[in-house]
């Protein structure tokens, strides 16, 4: 009954459907194993969701991440879209296409509402890194969305090139 929601979480955080399925399986096994620890604190669905997220994070954590040294703070960019042109499938795809670290940070911050502090703890990075990863993720997504939407935003060449 929860599998639909949990699988969607897995999809967001994973690179593609196949990996998402593997990650979901692992997440469920962990849930069964740790069910004794649940202890009725908070919602059961929320607890399972958290486990799913952690499972996927752990999986990609072990892999090499291209460390970003630059820590500029870009403000949240605005993007012009034709809503009909950006179906959910497309958005999911471009999220999955993000480099692992950016994808994690973007999902945690923008879609699941974690703070930079929490993200930093969960991923073992600094808050600054989390913020810059987020900006970069947004930039990538924005350019893909705009391209799809076929609307030029008239931004500077520098931002478009990124």
């Amino acid at each position, binding site marked *: *009954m929860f599998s*639909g929601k949990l699988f969607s979480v897995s999809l967001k955080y994973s690179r593609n459907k196949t990996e998402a399925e593997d990650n979901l399986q692992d997440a469920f096994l962990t849930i069964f194993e740790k069910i*004794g620890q649940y*202890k009725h604190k908070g919602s059961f669905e929320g607890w399972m969701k958290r486990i799913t997220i952690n499972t996927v994070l752990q999986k990609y954590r072990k892999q090499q991440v291209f460390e970003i040294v630059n820590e500029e703070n870009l403000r949240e*960019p605005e993007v012009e*879209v*034709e809503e009909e042109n950006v179906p959910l499938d497309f958005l999911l795809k471009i999220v999955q296409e993000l480099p692992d670290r950016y994808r994690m940070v973007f999902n945690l911050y*923008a*879609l699941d509402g974690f703070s930079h502090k929490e993200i930093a703890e969960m991923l073992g990075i600094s808050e600054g890194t989390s913020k810059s990863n987020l900006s970069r993720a947004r930039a990538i997504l924005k350019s893909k969305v705009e391209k799809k939407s076929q609307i030029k935003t008239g931004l500077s060449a520098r931002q478009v090139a990124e």
Partner: protein
Amino acid sequence: MSEKKHIDRLFQEKFKDFEVSPGKNVWNNIERELKGKKPRRRVLIPIWYKIAGSAAMLAFLIWLGSSVFDNAPDNDKTNIATEIEANEVENTPEISNPETGNEEAEANFEENNLPESELISTEAVVSTEGKQNNDQQVSKNKASVSKESYIKVPEKQEDFLSGKMASNKAEKPRQVEENAGLNPENNFEKPVSTEKKSEISKAEVSPENVPSEKSAQEKEEANKKSLLAYAEQQKKEESPDEENLENALSQSKWQIQPFAAPVYYKGGNAIDPKFASNPTESDITMAYGVNVAYQISEKLKIRSGIGQVKISNNIQDIAFVSTVEPTALSNIDYNPQAETLRIENASTVFIPNGEVAGRGVVPFSAGTLNHQMGFIEVPLEIEYALIDKKFGLSIIGGGSTLFLSENNISINSAQGTTNIGEANNLNNTSFSTNIGLGLDYEITKRFELSLEPTFKYQLNTFSENVDFNPYYFGVFTGVSFKF
């Protein structure tokens, strides 16, 4: 229409109700993995059954024992025993249980629902012999059987019963007439169990059959309930494994509690009729022991243990003297050295002060007759939690089996203590019914301090009818450790 949007917002809105079902293979893989881990689950549930079974057995035995010794059947115990059975059957989500219950119920249904089953009105069926029995059972059945198990009595059974009656052929057409007007309101309520048939065949019905039948009915009811619960579960969840695991992988359900208790006993004179009017008083003694409790549901715990309780009962206003013509007290087995003692109710004799004046005055001394009784107690109780916070309050009820371990009668006087012997009217095994209140304070998650004032009413301590009912009251203080 194009819109400017914060990119986060865009994603959030689109992903708001995002739900995708995974492929079927996902579940197969999970199941495969889980099967590898199954042994652990299996071990926990059989233990559950074993403990529950033995606890129920024990409760039933105690009930049986007390009803054998004490003529009045103890209804509370029966209910507790069958409630335990019913609760356990309901709570375990084990799959095999509802299935067997289902088969059983199905078989019975088929057997009983013959196409031409006749309806029988109560008066026609009941013969003079079995009348009382049926009424009693019918009323019991009405109380305990739910709507689901109304069954029309089949032809077979009806013939069987009518065969018993003194007049046969004459009665039969009358019955057929009565039944011709098929009146649904005349449904004769009978339980599903097949035991009933053979039981009615015997003219006598002893009281023992009734409770076992009742528990069989309750079991059926409980089986049905668990069947429904299982069906609901199947509908609700894709994977029934989740709930099973959650129940089986329990946290700390066991509790061990060493305790000490000051005990106040109220008894009387069981030693000899001549002391019937003597005042008796008991000393406050200490009881010690260890209790073990198991949490069978959120509010219910079942507990047992072992302990030792000593009673010291004094019959006062006694006069005694050493003499060549002793008269034995009725309920004492004398020690050899005490055989020369003559013991009397002080109000019936004259106790001289100081030195004995002359002949003919029997030099009685004053004293008290003290009876020391020691028991090894094995309680079996249920604890129901009323309040379950840091400070807890619960009700405790149940019974104990008492094994006599010490039995000593002696005379206490200014000159000292003389051991006389032992009482010969004490039962080696006896029972008590207990009721008490439990006050707990949770020091840490695993440690708890408890204070349990409990009243224990002894049932058959003395083998002959004595004119008092002994009981004792103790404040059981203990520290319990959960694991």
